[in-house]
């Protein structure tokens, strides 16, 4: 029983982290109709900034905040310098250009920080396990990720649903041409949205950094999952991204946790041990395929164009 609770928490934590990454991606894709493969690079930059700033300031929290600001600025600069010129082009051009940006960022990181990767050690108060209910201990840092990500999700919800900027963002997701025609400064809105997306990716990267290592190309594998999530959730929908991220996080973790034992009941030990990781990594793609068949627009599609 405790095992299930702990594994659910693991899934929740992974899902929320994916949500931070997917939220930015879905905003940019949904509102600006822009495919940004370099989103994973912003995630990586968030982690590198955090490792650098934490080492400079000696404080984890201060360093993380600085890194967040730096990724936001980097996102805005990137949009202003490069991506702005690609909005009118078709998706293939965008894929090509942002793929180029991945290579650019990877090599920039190699030049600045070297090929070996960095470590981002946690302060002592975050490395202790916390007793959440009697008998269940959970790492404090993973708990913090859950709390921060939930807070960010709530804030995002409030901003998108309750503020004027949020209204514009939603309007942009529904009909871009129309809000331009109504005299809204769509360029500024796009820059803002892109900056916000970058900051969210940066936040995901810097929170993931102490668990993983800070290394070149760390954003590439996880970006695939983020795309799966926005497809499942419905492109442009924050709520969809949130729900889909939780689904994916929990299904992936539960699959890894329990599938091997289930398979061992049917197959021989060795075959089960080998097949289980392969099968569990397929689960989320199966989920995506099923949802694409049943609801091609995703679970929570943004309002129709």
């Amino acid at each position, binding site marked *: 029983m405790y095992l299930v609770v702990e594994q659910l928490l693991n899934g929740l*934590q992974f899902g929320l982290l994916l949500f931070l990454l997917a939220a930015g991606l879905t905003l940019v894709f949904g509102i600006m109709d822009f495919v940004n493969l370099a989103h994973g690079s912003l995630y990586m930059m968030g982690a590198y900034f955090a490792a650098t700033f934490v080492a400079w300031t000696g404080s984890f929290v201060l360093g993380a905040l600085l890194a967040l600001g730096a990724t936001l600025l980097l996102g805005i600069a990137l949009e202003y310098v490069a991506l702005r010129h690609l909005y009118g082009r078709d998706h293939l051009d965008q894929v090509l250009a942002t793929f180029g940006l991945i290579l650019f960022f990877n090599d920039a990181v190699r030049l600045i920080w070297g090929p070996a*990767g960095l470590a981002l050690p946690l302060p002592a108060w975050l490395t202790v396990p916390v007793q959440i209910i009697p008998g269940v201990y959970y790492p404090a*840092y993973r708990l913090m990720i859950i709390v921060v990500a939930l807070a960010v999700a709530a804030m995002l919800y409030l901003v998108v649903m309750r503020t004027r900027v949020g209204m514009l963002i939603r309007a942009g997701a529904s009909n871009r041409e129309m809000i331009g025609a109504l005299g809204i400064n769509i360029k500024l809105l796009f820059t803002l949205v892109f900056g916000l997306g970058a900051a969210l990716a940066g936040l995901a990267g810097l929170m993931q950094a102490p668990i993983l290592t800070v290394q070149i190309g*760390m954003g590439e594998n996880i970006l695939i999952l983020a795309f799966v999530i926005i497809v499942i959730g419905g492109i442009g929908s924050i709520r969809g991204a949130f729900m889909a991220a939780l689904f994916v996080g929990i299904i992936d973790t539960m699959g890894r946790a329990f599938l091997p034992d289930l398979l061992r009941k049917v197959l021989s030990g060795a075959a089960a*041990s080998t097949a289980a990781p392969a099968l569990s990594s397929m689960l989320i793609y199966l989920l995506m395929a099923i949802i694409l068949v049943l609801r091609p627009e995703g679970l929570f599609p943004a309002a129709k164009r």
Partner: protein
Amino acid sequence: MKKAFWLAGAMALALAQPATAADSVKIGFVSTFSGPTAVIGNDMRNSFELALDHLGRKIDGKPVEVIYEDDQQKPDVGKQKTEKLVQSDKVDFIVGYIWSNVLLASLKTAVDSKTFLISANAGPSQLAGELCSPYVFSTSWQNDQTPAAMGLYMNQKGVKSVFLIGPNYAAGKDMLAGVKSTFKGEVVGEEYTVWPSQLDFSAELTKARNSTAESIFVFYPGAAGVQFLNQYAQAGIKAQIPLYTAFTVDELSLPLQKDNAIGIPGAQEWVNDLPNAENKKFVEDYHKKYPGLRPTYYGAQAYDAAQLINSAVVAVKGDLTKKDAMKAEMEKANFKSLRGPFKYGNNHIPIQNFYLQDVVKDADGQLSLKTVATIVKDDQDKFHDKCSMK
């Protein structure tokens, strides 16, 4: 049309280039030079280059040409690069291979062309057994050997039960099988993770903690080892269940693992402080040539590979067509390995010692590895009976 013209021109030019005369020794080097594990490939290249420096950049008086190829840690790419080295570069030796799955994919190409292949790291069980070949040598080990030594050490410590975690690919399976072959206690659980994409081990760690195991054994080379130790320490399991490792803590991962690695034992056939003269010279000159970097067992194995090649070429006086004579010479292991005692079994896998290594703070306050004890002497892999070469 214009494109076709240029293409034809380029091809004509390529054909017109004189075939390289046999007055140089051509070595292909396949390893990982991009992505997160590029640090390993770089270390192997650094050590190989250092070995060539020590040989005076010449083998039996002939200049040496090394062609480095990046396998991107992918079996299909490794195979392609091996094919390129064999078929278009026509190299005399192929060295390298960090990853067992990459080596297994590339093996047939080299063996079919009768090109000598020297694995400087990967040691899949198949290579030692049914796939052994006269043209394939190893300067590392068979995968099972190192974890088997760890299993022996765990018996010495009186460990009663273990939870095994490793990556789901050729080497991961060999490694866990290796511990099981010698460990006398109970194996409570055995988990494989998706390799190399899975970086979060929370589900596996949770299972290990909730099991009755009194120890955990893992095999996670490269950056995955850093991630595993981070998560193991952060989850507070380090204070509860001791960890035993193979190829998880090394000089490349240590600067990133930092204090998380303290108190985590590992087994290894080479440690930087092994007391023989050749090793002292290697470590010293490595520091001189590559300031700020530290040599690893990957590099030491690559260094030995260069020495092995040298011994073979010298023995046939530079006549690289005498493959049988070269093979016979290499089987003698007629060179001074950095790890000390080294001889070949019938399957061309070294018979060697395995040491217990521990993490200590060195004179500059930096973490480094230190030999604590010899776990097993003159260990031979357990697959050599399955090899058809006697």
